[in-house]
């Protein structure tokens, strides 16, 4: 059986994205349970900065992965493994996944920009403010961030279900991404 697989760079970046996304979900549920930031309570500072840093880096990683993916595009899987109709649905799932990741990250960054809290990229570079302190816009983008992230979780569940389905069928589709 000969199958064209994804480039190794795409594979590594895909798993880096997956790990980062799950970490961001788990850590955000925890960090929102920390005391509200004040003069006495600064416990949110580190996890929030880390959350923003990983989110910003995630957009860069996604861009590099998409570049590598389009530059080294594998052939579609054989029709006996994936019918053309299902293949189109799989492509749509990927497009939606990338769009929602981007929307989730951008809305999070905009919410942060309008909150008045600065962002220091990996504690090295002070990023410019894209907005100004504005409570209404902060809440608006914060809501968009929240809902796009819930949608992301649902789309990830669909994506994972598809991957597991092909893994249990052992039709070679999953090996295009999982190979040594």
């Amino acid at each position: 059986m000969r199958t064209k697989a994804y480039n190794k760079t795409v594979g590594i970046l895909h798993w880096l994205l997956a790990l980062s996304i799950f970490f961001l979900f788990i850590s955000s549920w925890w960090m929102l349970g920390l005391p509200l930031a004040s003069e006495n309570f600064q416990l949110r500072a580190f996890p929030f900065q880390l959350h923003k840093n990983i989110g910003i880096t995630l957009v860069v990683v996604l861009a590099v992965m998409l570049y590598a993916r389009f530059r080294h595009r594998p052939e579609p899987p054989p029709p006996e493994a994936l019918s053309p109709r299902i293949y189109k649905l799989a492509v749509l799932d990927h497009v939606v996944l990338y769009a929602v990741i981007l929307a989730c990250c951008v809305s999070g960054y905009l919410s942060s920009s309008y909150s008045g809290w600065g962002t220091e990229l990996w504690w090295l570079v002070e990023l410019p403010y894209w907005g100004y302190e504005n409570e209404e816009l902060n809440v608006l983008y914060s809501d968009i961030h929240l809902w796009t992230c819930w949608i992301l979780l649902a789309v990830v569940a669909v994506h994972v279900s598809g991957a597991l389905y092909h893994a249990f069928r052992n039709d070679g589709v999953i090996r295009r991404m999982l190979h040594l």
Partner: protein
Amino acid sequence: MAVTLNKTAGPGWASGLGAVVVLLGVLLAAWHGNEWMKLAIVGVPPWSLAQMPDADCEADELEEEGLTLAECRQLALSMHDISISAPDWFPAFHIAVSAAGLLLALLSVFAGVALVDYRQWAAATALTTLGALAVLDVVSFVGVVMVGPLIRQMYLWSILLWFFIHLSMAVAALAGYRNEREARRSWHAPE
């Protein structure tokens, strides 16, 4: 350039198990990473409960976060849950378990990939890694049993769940490993 896979597919059990191992390995790595950060930040709160300053709960902040005043006050109190219920050795123990868990979770992802893209050594590697994760879960479970109820209610159930997941996957890897070995033996055995 695109990679060409030109070997025959591995057995069905290895493909299914491998994909599940990769998925759960990524989730576990994220969980342990968060545990590491959690202990580093609230493992030792800067104040004792008696000296703790009042939580700053302004009305606009509460509205923005969707919190009640009681919840806001409780957030400040709850950061003491770990320190109240934990003996001195617990933060270091939990950080060590999380570090080992993170490393083993990443190794299990590698083992899962080797199962999907089948290699002869993949089942043995998966068995070792998943077995080590199950042992780590037991160590973690025993450690948490020895601390107070606040920490037990926080961790005991999730550790037990992970233990049975790792145990199930380790047993599946063992069964696959033995089947493959017997199949190879019968292949090489004289008629």
